[in-house]
C-alpha cells in the first residue's frame, strides 16, 4: 500500500466518516456501489438473484447474510465480475461495471478456500496483483511487504502456502487483495474454512482492518453471529431476494418478517388472528397463547392473521406473574448450558419455544427437564412481523 494513496483515501474517509456511521446508505449520490434490479437466472427455472436493489457507501462494512442458496454468493460474484447478471446493473462511482472482466474491475475477492497459488511463496502470492498490473519489481516487493505487515506475516514471506496454518493462509489471502488497493473488497465466506476460535479472532481483525483502511467491505456469510459482529449493515437474503437491510441491532431486535426472524434464530414466532385493536395496541389470539403488542394504524386488522416475534432473550422464566396476555406455561424439554447463558428449549401446547436466561441461573434449571415453568414477556418485546 503506497503512502500517498493511503493518505488520500484517509482524507476522503474522514469526510465520509460522520455520515457513514449515522446513515451509511445516504452517501452522496453517484459514489459508492449501486446494485440496480440485479437479477441472475441459471437456466429457465433457477433464479439465484431476483431484483436486488442495494446501495453501499465507501468505507462501509456490509454483510450479505442468508442460508445457502439465497443468492448472496451469486450477488458477490456478479459484483466481482465472476458471473454476469441476467439483467440489472452494477454501478461503482457512477460507472457501470457490466461487461468488464474481473481483471478490469476495481474490486478484489477473498475466496472461501483462500485460492492461494501453491507454486508461489507467500510474498510472490501477494506480489501477483501488482505484477499483473506492471508494477516494477522493487515497488511491488515494497507493497507486498507492507501488506504482509498489515496482516502480521512478514516473517513467513518466503514460505510456500502449504507450510502455513489455515489462519495464516487466510491472512495471505487478505494481504494479496489489500495490496491491490481495491475500491471494494469482496469476501466470500472468508472465515468458513477456519476453526471456531480462529474464526472469532479473525472476525475482530477483519473489522479492525476495515476500520483502519476505511475500505468498502462486502462480506458474505451464513453465520448470523459473524454478521452481527462485523457488519455496519446487514443485508438478509432469502430465495434470491433481500428480506431486510438494517444495522445489526435492528436486525437482531426488530426483524421485519418471518423469514428474517426465523433465520436469525433464537426468536419465538407466534402466528394467530388479531382479536382486538385499540389505538396503537392490538391483541393477537395465537391459540393457547394470547399476545399483545403495538402496531400503527392500518398495520393490522381485527380478524386478520398476524405474526409476531419475541426474542428468546426477552422471555422471562418463572418471574412474577403480571396478569393479562403475554404469558403461558411451558414444559422444559432441554436445558442447554452455554456458559454466559442458559438456553431453555420448551414445549407449550405443541409450540416449541426458546428462552435464554443468565448463565448464573443454571443451578435453578439443572436437571429440571420435564417440569413446568411460567413464561412471560413484556409487551414492548413483542414485535409485529410483516407478512
Amino acid at each position, binding site marked *: 500500500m503506497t503512502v500517498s494513496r493511503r493518505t488520500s483515501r484517509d482524507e476522503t474517509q474522514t469526510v465520509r466518516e460522520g455520515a457513514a456511521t449515522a446513515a451509511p446508505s445516504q452517501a452522496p449520490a453517484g459514489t459508492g456501489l449501486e446494485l440496480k434490479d440485479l437479477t441472475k437466472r441459471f437456466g429457465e427455472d433457477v433464479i439465484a438473484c431476483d431484483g436486488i436493489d442495494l446501495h453501499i457507501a465507501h468505507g462501509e462494512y456490509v454483510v450479505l447474510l442468508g442460508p445457502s442458496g439465497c443468492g448472496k454468493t451469486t450477488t458477490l460474484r456478479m459484483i466481482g465480475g*465472476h458471473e454476469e447478471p441476467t439483467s440489472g446493473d452494477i454501478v461503482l462511482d457512477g460507472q457501470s461495471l457490466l461487461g468488464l*472482466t474481473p481483471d478490469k474491475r476495481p474490486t478484489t475477492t477473498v475466496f*472461501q*478456500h483462500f*485460492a492461494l*497459488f*501453491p507454486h508461489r511463496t507467500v510474498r510472490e502470492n501477494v506480489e501477483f*496483483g501488482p*505484477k499483473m498490473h506492471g508494477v516494477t519489481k522493487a515497488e511491488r516487493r515494497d507493497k507486498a511487504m507492507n501488506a504482509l505487515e498489515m496482516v502480521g506475516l512478514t516473517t513467513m514471506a518466503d514460505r510456500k502456502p502449504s507450510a502455513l496454518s489455515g489462519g495464516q493462509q487466510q491472512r495471505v489471502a487478505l494481504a494479496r487483495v489489500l495490496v*491491490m488497493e481495491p475500491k471494494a473488497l469482496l469476501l466470500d465466506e472468508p472465515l468458513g474454512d477456519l476453526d471456531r476460535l480462529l474464526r472469532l479472532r479473525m472476525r475482530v481483525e477483519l473489522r479492525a482492518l476495515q476500520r483502519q483502511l476505511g475500505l468498502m467491505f462486502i462480506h458474505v456469510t451464513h453465520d448470523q453471529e459473524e454478521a452481527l459482529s462485523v457488519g455496519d449493515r446487514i443485508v438478509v437474503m432469502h430465495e434470491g431476494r433481500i428480506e431486510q437491510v438494517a444495522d445489526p441491532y435492528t436486525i437482531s431486535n426488530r426483524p421485519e418478517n418471518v423469514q428474517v426472524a426465523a433465520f436469525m434464530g433464537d426468536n419465538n414466532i407466534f402466528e394467530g388472528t388479531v382479536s382486538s385493536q385499540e389505538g396503537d395496541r392490538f391483541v393477537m389470539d395465537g391459540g393457547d397463547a394470547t399476545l399483545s403488542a403495538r402496531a400503527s394504524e392500518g398495520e393490522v386488522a381485527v380478524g386478520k392473521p398476524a405474526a409476531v416475534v419475541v426474542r428468546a432473550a426477552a422471555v422471562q422464566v418463572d418471574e412474577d406473574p403480571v396478569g393479562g396476555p403475554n404469558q403461558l406455561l411451558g414444559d422444559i424439554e432441554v436445558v442447554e448450558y452455554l456458559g454466559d447463558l442458559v438456553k431453555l428449549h420448551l414445549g407449550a401446547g405443541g409450540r416449541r419455544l426458546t428462552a435464554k436466561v443468565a448463565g448464573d441461573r443454571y443451578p435453578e434449571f439443572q436437571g429440571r427437564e420435564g417440569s413446568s415453568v411460567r413464561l412471560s414477556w413484556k409487551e414492548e418485546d413483542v414485535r409485529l412481523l410483516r407478512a
Partner: protein
Amino acid sequence: MSGSSEPEGRPGLRVEEIAEAEQVVGGLAPEEAALGEKERAGARGRKALTTAAWTAPGAVWLVFFLLAPVLMIVLVSFWTRTFSGFEAVWTLDNYQFLFDSNVYWDQLWSSFWHSLVIVAASLVFGFPVAYFLAISVSSLRYQIALFIVALAPFWTSYLIRAVAWIPMMGRQGALNTALIEVGLIDQPLDILLFSDFAVTVAMLQLYILFMVTPIFFMLAQIDRSSLEAARDLGANAFKTFREVILPQSMPGIVIGSIFVFILTMGEFATVRIIGGGTVSSVGTIVQTQVASVQFPQAAASAVFLVLAMIVGVFVLLRFSNLREEL
C-alpha cells in the same frame, strides 16, 4: 550376481534413511529433542529397519529386472564375439568399432533429435487435450468418461496400432484415396508411409497419451478458484495461463516428456513397420546387430543409447523440481 549386489544396495538405502530420520529429529519439539542420545539412536535404527523392510520388495525387483540386465549389457559390451554368441574375454573392439562408425553416431544423434521433436509435438498437441479434459470439462463424470475414451487406443497392442497405420497411410490407403477423391491431390502422397514423417506422426499418435496423462493429472489438481483469483487480481486469460496454470502443470510436462523421450528414443518396432526399410534408428541398429548374433556389438551400441537417454532425462529434469513440486 544379483545375490551379491543386494546387500550392497541395502546399506545405501539405510544411510539415506538415517539422513532423513536425522532431519526429522532436528525439527522436533524441544522435549522430544531432549531425549537421550541412546534412545534417539535406537529409535532411528528401528525406523531405518522398518523403512528397509518396506523398500525390500521394490529393491529386489529393481535389482533383478533393471540393475542386473543393465550390468549384464555393460559386461557383454566388453566381451568378445564368437561365432555363436560371445565369450568372457575382455576387449575394447566393440567400442573401437562404434567410435569408427559415423553411421552409428549420425543415427544416435538423429534418434535423439527425433525424440525431442516427438516430445515437442506431443506437448503441443497433448497439452490442449489435457487442458480441455482437466479445466474446460467441469463435471467429473464427463472428465472420467472422456479420459477413458482418450485411453481407448491403449486397449489394443501398440504393434497392432502401428500396423493399422499401413492401410490408413499407404499409397492405396484410406487417406490418400480420400484426398484424391476430394481432388486435393492427383497422385498419392508417398510421404504418408515409409518415411521419416510417417514414423514421426505414428510415434506421436502411439505415445501422446504418455504426455496427456501426467499433464491431465497435474491440471486436474489445480484449484479452480485460484484461476478466478488470478483473474480477480488483474491477470487476463493469457497471463492466468502463463503465471498460474503452466507453472503448476510443469511437473506433469516434465514427467510426460521423460516418458515420451525414453520410449521413442529406443523405439525400433514402429520404425520398422511404418518406416519400412527406409528409416532407421539406434533401436533398429541394435536390433539388426542382435539379429545377426553380434551381441557384444549390440550391447556396446545399447550402452551409448542408454547414456544418451540419461543425458536427455537430466536435461528435462532441469525444468522442474519434481521432489518439491509434486
